[in-house]
């Protein structure tokens, strides 16, 4: 509630009243003042209270609202400094006694799969900027706050990274897509199968109906009112065709695979690292052309991840 500017107070034990700002009222069903409780028994006794608990609609709305807020944090590890992992160039390195913070970036993703049914899964991708290693894990990355602090240790510099965050993000997405590929393929195959099975039944049904109507039309020509009856049957046959098109479109829509990837949040984890003297950039075609970019807030020219 703090995050969206809603003030609240506990008006009775276990019962809260929140004043909703005008901008948020539409989201909360028009309520100006929202009275709520976390206690189911209270909610049962006082039916004017909104219940917030697992399985409550209001909690779902709150989570939906939270998901709209983009948030990024940075944390500094309290562990002892370590030597950084080797990069892609396997060469002898000189280790200095300088200690600095080396960044790694966590991207937490939510993936929604939809193909008739709908399910959500959570993944995290941890990108090590030094080694370009990206690992995809099930579930969101859980930070043990006993090992991190939100402020850096005094005197320890935040190291320069030559990694472009946008590129890193795209690489994380690519890695994630690779890990989802088999699941998406499986889902697509299932969807296609369901679609064609359902369509088969429906088309057989329509064909049979059409056949019956055509038979009726043949018989009708022996009757005096055959023009009218024929017209009616033709109309019914046209309706069947319309229905076929409509159903086909509905089935395709129902069983098409849709995967939506959302970035829940991102955390930059700084790990104390023993300094390695960086080699000078060589003027060859293999040079990685990626200068560091300053942020717009007037920082000195460094990586965007700082």
């Amino acid at each position, binding site marked *: 509630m703090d995050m969206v500017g809603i003030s609240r107070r506990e008006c009775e034990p276990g019962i809260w009243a929140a004043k909703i700002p005008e901008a948020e009222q539409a989201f909360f069903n028009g309520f100006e003042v929202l009275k709520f409780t976390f206690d189911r028994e209270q909610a049962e006794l006082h039916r004017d209270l909104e219940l917030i608990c697992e399985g409550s609609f209001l909690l779902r709305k709150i989570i939906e609202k*939270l998901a709209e807020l983009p948030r990024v944090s940075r944390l500094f590890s309290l562990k002892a400094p370590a030597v950084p992992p080797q990069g892609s160039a396997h060469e002898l390195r000189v280790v200095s006694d300088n200690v600095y913070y080396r960044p790694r970036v966590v991207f937490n993703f939510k993936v929604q799969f939809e193909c008739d049914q709908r399910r959500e899964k*959570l993944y995290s991708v941890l990108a090590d900027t030094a080694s370009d290693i990206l690992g995809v894990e099930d579930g*969101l990355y859980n930070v043990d706050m006993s090992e991190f602090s939100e402020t850096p240790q005094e005197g320890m510099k935040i190291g320069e990274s030559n990694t472009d965050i946008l590129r890193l993000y795209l690489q994380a997405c690519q890695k994630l897509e690779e890990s989802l590929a088999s699941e998406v393929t499986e889902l697509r195959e299932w969807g296609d199968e369901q679609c064609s099975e359902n369509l088969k039944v429906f088309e057989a049904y329509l064909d049979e109906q059409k056949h019956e109507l055509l038979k009726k039309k043949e018989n009708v020509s022996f009757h005096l009112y055959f023009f009218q009856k024929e017209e009616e049957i033709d109309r019914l046959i046209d309706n069947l065709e319309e229905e076929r098109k409509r159903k086909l479109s509905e089935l395709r829509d129902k069983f098409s695979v849709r995967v939506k990837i959302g*970035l829940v949040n991102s955390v930059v984890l700084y790990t104390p690292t023993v300094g390695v003297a960086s080699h000078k950039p060589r003027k060859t075609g293999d040079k990685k052309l990626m200068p560091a970019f300053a942020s717009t807030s007037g920082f000195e020219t460094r990586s965007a991840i700082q």
Partner: protein
Amino acid sequence: MMTNSLTRTRAEKSPLIKVESRNELSFTFQIKGKAFQQGYLFLNPQMKELFPFNEDLCSVTFIDDDEVPHSAIYHKMRGYMVCLTFNEWWEKKKVCEGDTVSIELIDLAARTYRLKVLNGAMVKTTVPAGENVELRIASVSDTSISYNEHNLEVLRRMVKGEFSPFRETSLIQLGEELAAGICSEELLSLKTCFGVSTYFHQVQTARMVMDKLNGRALLADEVGLGKTIEAGLILKEYLLRGMARKVLILTPASLITQWQQELKTKFDLSFKNHLEINDWEDSDLVIASLDTAKSQKNQSTVQKIKYDLLIVDEAHKLKNRKTKNWKFVNSINTKYLLMLTATPIQNDMIELFNLISILKPGHLSTVQKFKDDFLAERDKRLPKNSTKLREMLADIMIRHRRADTLIKFPQRYVHTHAVDLNPDEAELYRELTDFIRKRYFTLPTHKNPRGINRLTLILLQKLMGSSTHALAKALDKMIASNFYKDDFDHSLKRLLDMARNVKHSKKGQVLMEIVRSLNEKVIIFTQFRGTQDYLVKMLEEDGYSVAVFNGQLSQVEKDRCIEDFRGSKQILVSTESGGEGRNLQFCKVLVNFDLPWNPMRIEQRIGRIHRLGQNEDVHIINLSARDTIESYVLELLDKKINLFRLIIGELEMILGNMHSKRTLEQIIIDIVTMSPNQDAMKRKFKTLGNKLEKALQTHNDITQAQEEIFNGE
């Protein structure tokens, strides 16, 4: 062409590209450096004009001439694009440094551009201004995957160094984990139901519909087993799991309010009815009558909307595929569909076929084939091959019988007290009835604009049936309003005097005797506030603790009233709004001090204490005065259709068998007002009674036929 690297100028070393040619919709440039191969496209100010976007970061798509899309992120402030697949394109097209490449705008709103290599030649590319370029994409990459726009907002913050306290970031994470962890085996909706004792068969139905029937099913439990609860569980489950957002419930008009209240009080879901919405498209949770939805005004709008879930109550109204109702419901675009009816077959097996055709067309093949396979020749309601039929129905229909559920259904015991009115009450009753009969057809005219309208006259009749106190209160108001300033005024005053002169109410006396004989909690229902005030006063004067419930109370006061009744107070005196959605099953005795002419309202009163969840037998005590309209109504309902012994929900089905466009209440009003005298009225009530008996018999026949079809008995 690249010059010798040893003599490259500063401009040549720069990754910024020199534009060779440019127009409104495209530009060409000579590709240079390794930047592009590594996925970077640096834009000079000329090129930036072709990317006129406001956001700091935005997604842009390049389509190459093989129609392969390449997704890029444009960093506006820094003036570059990054794309992981530029390199693939480079290699595929065998692009070399110095080759000329063109970028051409395809669709600004979709932020899509064409990327082409021009074979090294410096050719001006022009796209005629204003010409629509058709976008054709035949992608080899997976176009079923898309990314939220919100992702770039997160990235933007990181790029700009706008870091938030970790507690905020982790709160969002916690929310997502909660939501994701919620996809468990257990039904989430069970955790937030109120006043609902869900039974095994209901939970089983909900699971079956969601897991096996893909959300499209005919819920055909016998009456009284809680189909509404089942539908509510499924609905809420879909909403909580994010599988449904847009929901439409179609019910008979008379049940809209009941559905709304049940969904709110039991499932904490706020549905709007069609009168409360401005726009069908904008409202996600809507409940409406079938007639309203299919009306000319609304039909095409409803048909255009893509619903996630459609619930149709009393679905047996769709038994005929030639009707507008059937065609309309069949035309609604919905992913999930629940149809509720206790009687999927009323007269003919084809009715069942027609219902199933909406849910899963073709499941029971065609009409002719269905008839050939399953219809017995002698009786349209009886099947042949019923075993095979039941197997096929198992994929689309769920039906439970009361006998199968092992639920104990308590008995209803009915006690009717026919009361002889005191002489002064009886005289008042006669005078009033006579007055109404004479005035009923005297409509207000321009000469007599202040005649009493019919509704008011009927109301006076009902008030008298309730109590003289309620009548006196109403008459007092009518006279005080000065509206009826004609000969009616004299009559009204006379009636008021008579009412005031009635010393004791016989019904009141009988009520006190009943209450004194009971040693437990009692609910007393009355239609009118005037009667309620009288009863409360009488009971309190006799030393009883009384809780008073009516529609004037605030929500908080209503809650407190029920709590008081549950706690220390012995008697609850309530008007019709009493106890809606509230659990009053701790009480087992109900007194109808007066009787509404609408039997559904009586059913609703009884339903407060006699429903699934009530473990003990309930006692219903009716008070009616002999030789009054109420006594005829009571006789109809008690003797002819056995109202007080029905399973809750059966009444509506029985009344439906009368096939009348008028409600029972309207029929009663017509009998009362159009009968020239008491004898004529009695005869008409008798005729009505016969019709109701027939309706009950039909109901019993249908029930039996369904037993044979669905249970082979």
